[in-house]
C-alpha cells in the first residue's frame, strides 16, 4: 500500500497517509515510508526542507 505526503498551496506537508491504492493528484507526493516527520516540512523541488516555526501571537 502506497504512502503519501499531502501538501498545501505553500508546499507545506499537512498530512501523511497510507492509502489503499494509487492516487494521482498534484498535492499528493508519494513517499517510501509512513514518515510523520514530514509534517510541517516544505516541499522544494524533490526535497523536503524544515520550516521555522512562527512566533506565537499573544
Amino acid at each position, binding site marked *: 500500500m502506497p504512502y503519501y505526503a499531502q501538501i498545501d498551496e505553500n508546499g507545506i506537508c*499537512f*498530512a*501523511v*497517509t497510507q492509502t*489503499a*491504492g494509487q*492516487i494521482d493528484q498534484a*498535492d499528493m507526493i508519494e513517499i517510501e515510508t509512513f514518515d510523520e516527520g514530514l509534517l510541517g516540512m516544505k516541499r522544494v523541488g524533490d526535497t523536503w526542507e524544515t520550516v521555522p516555526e512562527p512566533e506565537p501571537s499573544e
Partner: protein
Amino acid sequence: MMEALLSFFLRQVGLRTDAASATGSAHAKLAYIAANTGIKSIQRGVINLGTSATSATATITSVNTSKAMVNFLGASSAGALGEFYEGSNLKGRYSKNGHHFVRVALTNATTVTVTRANANDTTAVVSYEVIEFY
C-alpha cells in the same frame, strides 16, 4: 432413481473449482462469501492542524461511505498559555484549551476532515484510520 438423486445433490454441492458466485453451487457460494466478507481496505493517516487552523482535510483512496468507518486514534498537541494584564502589568497566566479536542469525520468517499473549536496558536497532530468493509 438413485442416480438422478445423486446427480441432483452433486449439482447442488458443486466442485471445489467452481468460480465464486452468489447464485451458483454451494462451493461457488462459499467462495463468493469468502471473497466478499470482512475488511476490504484499511487506510491510515495523520493530519496536522496548523497554528491557526481549526480544520483540515486529507485525501484517501475512494471508499463506499455506507460500508466504511473512521476511527479516531488520538491527537497530540502542546499546551498553550494565555496571559491577562491589568494595564501593562502581567497579572496571571491561564491554560488555554479547546485546541486539544478534535473530531474526525469521513466527509465523503475520498476525504477525511478533522476539526477543533480553537486553534490557540498551537499545532495538533491527529491520527485516524478508515476501514472499509465488503
